[in-house]
């Protein structure tokens, strides 16, 4: 039974993937891409990688889907999204097929995967979830740099703004009809999402969850509130928003420096203090990840004008 399910899942992933790149029109491709992300998330869950499944569903299908839909809407307003058939790109298709065949060959040729043995190290890490132990302790340097990459992506996005729009509010202006669906959602969903997001971060120490997944849920809460007009649109000039962006990476970096001064070295966590330290870093990271994702989705400051 489970074999049939897996084969059906694989066929669906491949079929939807093909439909994404080979279909007609940008909008259809976006919708297929979102479906593709959700199917991949189910695939990760079938492999027992629940942390990856959550991240895939939240970031790849959810946030990326919103970004792509927003990009499509913007293109349509500029009447640049002609629903012309996507150009067939034979060299790209050949290279992609070649890489896929090579990776398929490697799957058969390679020995069984050998992962490092964490049984001795995990009790020293301060947390029970090995994924969190790897992300926040064993390979904390990777995670710190990744949080900073997210920030760099946002600064890069802001560089696409028009100079005259720099002091405008970020993103497009939303108008929710009072008493309409959006306005009601804007009041009902955030409290539930808030609890769910905070739970994901807290649970991440021992079981599935973590800063990236929790941050994405909190970002969604914040986005719904912004779209419903419950929160005023942020501006780059507002210090609180910029401070929230750097808060998480800053706490992470300074705790690493504290490890260099008071413990065995940069990013070192003494086992006795590891759990509270990791929870603190994750909480701070969650805030910054959530704010960064919100600002990435709503886009650079926009005065609504057309290019000259």
């Amino acid at each position: 039974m489970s074999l049939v399910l897996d084969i059906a899942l694989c066929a669906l992933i491949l079929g939807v993937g093909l439909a994404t790149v080979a279909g007609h029109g940008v909008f259809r491709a976006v919708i297929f891409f979102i479906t593709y992300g959700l199917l991949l998330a189910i695939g990760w869950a079938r492999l027992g990688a629940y942390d990856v499944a959550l991240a895939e569903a939240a970031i790849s299908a959810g946030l990326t889907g919103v970004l792509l839909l927003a990009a499509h809407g913007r293109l349509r307003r500029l009447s640049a999204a002609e629903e012309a058939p996507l150009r067939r790109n034979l060299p790209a298709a050949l290279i992609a097929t070649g890489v896929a065949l090579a990776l398929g060959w490697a799957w058969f040729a390679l020995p069984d995967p050998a992962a490092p043995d964490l049984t001795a190290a995990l009790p020293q890490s301060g947390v029970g979830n090995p994924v969190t132990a790897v992300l926040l302790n064993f390979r904390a340097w990777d995670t710190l740099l990744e949080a900073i990459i997210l920030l760099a992506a946002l600064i890069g996005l802001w560089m696409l703004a028009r100079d005259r729009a720099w002091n405008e509010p970020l993103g497009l202006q939303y108008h929710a009809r009072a008493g309409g669906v959006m306005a009601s959602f804007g009041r009902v969903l955030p409290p539930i999402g808030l609890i769910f997001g905070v739970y994901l971060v807290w649970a991440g120490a021992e079981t599935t969850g973590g800063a990236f997944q929790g941050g994405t849920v909190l970002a969604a809460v914040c986005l719904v509130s912004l779209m419903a007009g419950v929160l005023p649109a942020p501006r780059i000039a507002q210090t609180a928003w910029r401070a929230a962006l750097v808060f998480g990476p800053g706490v992470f970096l300074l705790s690493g420096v504290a490890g260099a001064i008071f413990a065995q070295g940069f990013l070192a966590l003494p086992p006795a203090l590891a759990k509270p330290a990791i929870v603190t870093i994750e909480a701070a990271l969650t805030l910054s990840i959530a704010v960064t994702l919100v600002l990435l989705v709503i886009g650079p400051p926009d005065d609504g004008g057309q290019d000259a």
Partner: protein
Amino acid sequence: MTALISGLVLPLLAALAAIALPARARLPVALLGVGLTLAASIWLAISVWTNGAITVSLGGWQPPIGIALRADGLGAALGVMTALVMAAVALAARHEMEPLVAGPRTSFGFWPLMLLLWAALNAVFVSRDLFNLYVGLELITLTAVALVAISGKAEAIAAALRYLLFALAGSLLYLAGVVLSYAAHGTLDISLLAARTAVPGDALALGLMTAGLLVKTALFPFHVWLPPAHSAAPAPASAMLSALVPKASLLILLRLWFEAMPELATPVALFTLAGLGALAVIWGGVLALLQARLKLIVAYSTVAQLGYIFLVFPLAGGDGAAQPWAAGAWTGAMFQMLGHGLAKAAMFLAAGIYIAAVGSDRLSDVRGLARALPMTGFAFALASITLLGLPPSAGFTAKYLLMTGAFASGQWAWAFVLVGGGLLAAAYLYRPLTAIFAREIAVTPRPIPWGWQAVPLVLAMLSVALGLLSSVPFDFLQIGRPDQAAEGL
């Protein structure tokens, strides 16, 4: 250890502060970060010189569980070169990125992006972990793409998007190779990989990683994104993009082919890499000849100059690594990395001064500017000496060492590439030099403060000094080098 960590933490902290603090504090905090990081890089080089290569296991976790960092002679030397270029870029950007000149958006974004790029470069120079190197490369790519787009012009944004698409394709290929290697060996550490038991998938993993890194290094035929991107950025950004950014992916290539998997370096693979390098030297040189704008000439010259470095693969890689000429050829290629970085940054900063002075970098507009701005003209000429490979510059040391390796190993065909590339460089640099040193001035320039004019001159002088005092950097680069069995020629 403190010096190594400081080189990573200080630029990151300064970048975070530059984002969060109000506008009036941005420049002071960024310049403070630049000064401190420069000091940390020099301090690291001094520690490596006195104590040998420095290894740190982050968080106290040894590989394969944790990430190891190691500053060897090459990593520390690239760190110092980067620090010198970054300090020069900061001094030039003080003028070019002023809010009144560049606008509030550019003057906000430039400093954090520059500091984040610097931190990422330092992270790649010392990392021993293939996935950590991937994360470092991603940070480099995103900051570099943003720096291309920062001028806000339509052609700059188009060039940035093209660069982003190429770089992301390169990232995916590299990551696929890392995943395969990790699946087979259960470790990402370069030193542990060197001691692994080989499996059939290794060649595929190395091939994928190499293909991805070649796209990011802009080796021929993957160079098409580089000239428009590097010439569309403002001059201080171009200096970082051309002098520093390609060196990071190139360094990872060297780490893979010389340290992690040297036994996979078959003669055919090595010949292919150097052959593409030779084509880059010729193609980049020919296209540089055809350009009418100073920044485009300098950008195409980057394609050509990076090509020389790939001659290191057949001259010092594979079975050749144990030969007596290997140390010389390898060090020659590293001199090319360092010398090109200093000279290319000097050229772009000089081009930036011309654009500030006459509002254009067309060869017809910069005519005669050496009379009005003699220091800048002299800087461009000195940097040209390094690119041409004339004595006593670092470029000469590099070509001399590579050529000695080519003749000693009987692979004299590569010597033709070195000589031919030098002649092409003479041809494509002749046009801007005759324009700049022409008798009559085409456009009367705006005055430029001498402190700004001195910046590219100092960099160009350093690129010559590197060749004059080549014995100290030569010995420094040997620290922690793999295959030290053979003494040089």
